[in-house]
């Protein structure tokens, strides 16, 4: 039963960095505007003789994170100079989210978009992180040479 006097609860609000920290990602200079994370996996369904689903197998679970940034810097020129396109499938590291599963190594998955209009410029892209740490390590290790 709830309390007869409503006193409130702690909630998750805003972009949610760790207290006193700025959310950072390698290679991107900016202010984070939004982050939307989705949990995804492949599903195979096994059907019975009447074509009803009898079992399911989930494989390759991973997170996909869509990020939107406002490019920024110590000056307007620095903000412009800081806009660079990431290396395809390159490793990026996210730091300082209060939600720990968002921190760590991610793989850049393309579709980096820079939107210029009559407002603040917006930079957006998608990154991916696998649930299995060994698989994630392997897929975020950039092979050089």
């Amino acid at each position, binding site marked *: 039963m709830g309390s007869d006097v409503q006193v409130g609860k702690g909630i998750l609000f*805003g972009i949610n960095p760790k207290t006193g920290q700025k959310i950072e990602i390698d290679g991107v200079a900016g*202010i984070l*505007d939004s982050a939307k994370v989705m949990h995804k996996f492949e599903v195979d369904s096994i059907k019975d003789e009447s074509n009803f689903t009898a079992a399911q197998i989930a494989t390759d679970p991973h997170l996909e994170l869509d990020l939107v940034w*406002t490019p*920024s810097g*110590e*000056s*307007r020129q620095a903000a412009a100079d800081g806009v660079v396109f990431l290396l395809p499938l390159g490793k990026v590291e996210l730091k300082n989210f209060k939600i720990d599963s968002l921190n760590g190594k991610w793989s850049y998955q393309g579709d980096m978009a820079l939107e210029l209009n*009559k407002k*603040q410029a917006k930079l957006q892209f998608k990154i991916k992180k696998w649930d299995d740490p060994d698989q994630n390590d392997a897929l975020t290790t950039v092979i050089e040479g």
Partner: protein
Amino acid sequence: MAAAHRILSLNDQALVAYVSRGIAGANVKPGKSSDDKAVPIVICWSERGSEDPPQSGIYTITAHVQVRTLAALDLNQDSKEPKDKSDQLVASVFDLFHQANDVAFVDTSGEDLANFINAAASGAGVSPYTCQYARVLAVTAGYDDQHGRMMKGSCWVDSLELEMVVAPADGL
């Protein structure tokens, strides 16, 4: 830096510096001033600022540059004279916000106008302040029959509404 976020007052002063530099001898005042505001006068008033992105120290401000000119006829004055004088001052002020920077067009980013305002503000000692973007949102015209009864009566009010992105820091 403790006084940095009185951004609306800083923006008023920057606009006053810009209009004063552009029109020598004009009576230009910030909205927040205790001087007599006798017409003809240009009042620079920053009405509202929202911090965008949040917690960034960057404000998108709605500001007004209001040109108030005497509507009443004076003794021995031709009936066209107040209107002509009003149009002349309004045109001079409004044209300041449509200037080109050594090229044949006004830039599309609003950065040239911002830089003109920054140069005037810096010259007048308005600090800490940088305007990063400015554009004209609207022009309006009206009439105020209550403006300072001691200041010779009613006046026309022609206004520019501006959208400006500013920050309380120098040299951005």
